[in-house]
């Protein structure tokens, strides 16, 4: 009623390209299924696992049937069957998701057992690394699962549950020891302590810089909301900061904070340093400022003037209006900034590895230096996992605090 552009009637007058596909002639098979089948078959035709005499040399690839002497053909057939069912358009979403997960499990188990079979008992130099076929199969089944999940239109609690269950499944898979003989896990086993420390550093970098950005950025955002004259200058400066390439910003922090630590009395005592984790933390903090400040401003500006007037009309002071009316209403936009910052900083924290700031980046760059693929994966995969989980979890949080449509006024 109040918003005619978004009234539901509009869907019926939409041009055909935006209407759901059902109005078209039905091909009888699922087109996305065809894509999955093509990807999956390519995955089956590429080596599943690569056997290397040591961690650096190029290895010999094994297809799934060859990698698992007895049951290889059966598993390959099973995976192919699952891919085939994706073609069936009428297949309900729940079984579709189940089959995709079964395919994923089959692929991962096949890799684990193939690695156990290929690496001779007691040989600590040989490596069985996941190869192109494994990644392609994983991608295919993950896409199948994601496609089914997104079509289900799950409620928010169900999506939290799905996130929790997938994490539990991954933990189970890594904890059960099935994958222990694969190259990445071998690298992990050799560095379990270091890995835990790197995880701690990585989280410190991402969350520490976020916390600092919130502590500093929220007041700045509020200040430029209250004093519009400052907006241009502050946002311009922060925008400029954002254009400095991450590599250079990380690099510049070292001499700056090294100088401060050496010349400002008391700075070194409170932890300021030109080496270690501190310069990386500050670089991430500077990158995080713009999203926090600008979203705080946008969120506060977007508050309905009627709400503000009503609050003033109730006799609240400026401070009370800000704390009790405006900030709570701006919360979803500010949380959106938290999502942006967290995902971005988890990724950028990798660069800290290059300037001695620790984190998973140290594995990535060490791996690049030694051309040791498994080490690169040991750094890159957990980083991607962290970013993904942070992204999904914060999306759900943002949705939870967003004002529901049609519920306002």
């Amino acid at each position: 009623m109040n918003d005619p552009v978004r009234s539901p009637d509009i869907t019926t007058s939409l041009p055909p390209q935006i209407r759901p596909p059902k109005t078209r002639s039905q091909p009888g098979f699922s087109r996305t299924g065809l894509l999955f089948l093509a990807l999956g078959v390519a995955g089956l035709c590429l080596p599943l696992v690569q056997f290397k005499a040591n961690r650096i040399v190029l290895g010999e690839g094994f297809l799934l049937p060859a990698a698992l002497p007895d049951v290889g053909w059966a598993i390959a057939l099973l995976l192919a069957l699952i891919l085939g069912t994706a073609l069936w358009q009428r297949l309900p979403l729940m079984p579709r998701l189940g089959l995709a997960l079964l395919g994923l499990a089959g692929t991962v188990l096949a890799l684990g057992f193939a690695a156990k079979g290929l690496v001779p008992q007691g040989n600590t130099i040989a490596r069985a690394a996941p190869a192109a076929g494994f990644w392609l199969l994983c991608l295919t089944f993950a896409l199948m699962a994601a496609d089914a999940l997104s079509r289900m239109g799950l409620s928010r609690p169900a999506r939290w549950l799905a996130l929790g269950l997938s994490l539990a499944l991954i933990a189970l898979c890594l904890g059960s020891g099935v994958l222990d003989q694969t190259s990445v896990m071998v690298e992990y086993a050799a560095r379990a302590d270091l890995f835990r420390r790197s995880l701690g550093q990585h989280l410190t970098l991402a969350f520490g810089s976020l916390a600092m950005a919130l502590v500093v950025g929220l007041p700045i955002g509020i200040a430029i909301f209250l004093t519009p004259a400052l907006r241009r200058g502050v946002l311009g400066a922060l925008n400029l900061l954002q254009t400095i390439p991450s590599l250079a910003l990380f690099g510049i922090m070292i001499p700056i904070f090294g100088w401060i630590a050496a010349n400002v009395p008391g700075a070194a005592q409170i932890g300021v340093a030109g080496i270690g984790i501190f310069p990386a933390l500050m670089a991430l903090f500077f990158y995080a400022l713009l999203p926090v400040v600008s979203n705080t401003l946008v969120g506060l500006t977007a508050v309905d003037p009627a709400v503000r007037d009503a609050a003033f009309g109730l006799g609240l002071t400026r401070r009370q209006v800000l704390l009790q009316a405006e900030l709570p209403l701006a919360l979803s936009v500010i949380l959106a900034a938290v999502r942006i910052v967290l995902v971005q900083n988890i990724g950028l924290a990798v660069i800290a590895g290059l300037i001695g700031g620790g984190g998973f980046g140290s594995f990535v760059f060490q791996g690049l230096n030694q051309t040791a693929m498994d080490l690169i994966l040991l750094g890159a995969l957990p980083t991607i996992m962290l970013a993904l989980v942070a992204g999904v979890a914060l999306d759900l949080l943002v949705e939870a605090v967003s004002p529901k449509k049609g519920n306002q006024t």
Partner: protein
Amino acid sequence: MIARLLLALAALFLVAFLLSPESFAALFQPLTKNGAPPIYTQTALLSLTLSHLGLVALAVLASTIVAVGLGVLVTRPAGAEFLPLARVITSVGQTFPPVAVLALAVPAMGFGAGPTLVALFLYGLLPIFENTLTALQNLPPSVTEAARGMGLTRRQRLFQVELPLALPVILAGVRLTAVISLATATIGSTVAARTLGEVIIAGLLSANTAFVVQGGLIVGLIAVLIYEGFQLAESAAARRTGQRLSD
């Protein structure tokens, strides 16, 4: 006005610095220690900049073609089935850290410009695709209806109505991609691509702040100029369709 002037000055400084870096040596001298060279001379800064820009331009061009193509495809009836999947891929893909994508491309492609190009291309797809999708799905229904009522064929509607209307938003996606790629390409030099990151890394390795600053300065200035250039193009595209609509 002042902003324009500053931009012009920045562009002028950039060109002058790239053509004759040595004349700015005094500017960077205070940043060096123990008589280290103030200007990176291992490779000419101009040639590094050109190779950096070439890499970014190639990647952005490829991502634009593929992403706009895919965006058009999933908004047609034949590709509508892919829409939910495409949405998931874009939102998930954008959480992938660019550095990780770059690192993962190395084993597949070896060292050099290859993995950088692939990582930039893949990562650049997402903002453009997302914007193409948003633009094509939020066209004013009255205009698309009118185009249909005029008897335009599907192809004519796409090329004469939908794409021109979507152009400003698509360009905004390309701008985002270009700026991200420009910064990510510097990391490419850790995998031996010839980019301005080489200067920064040389500075990091020899603790020469002058190198770090000049590498960062060049990339930053180019990013600002590209950003502003695209914004001009976007408003020009918006004006163009605005005029056409009022005709």
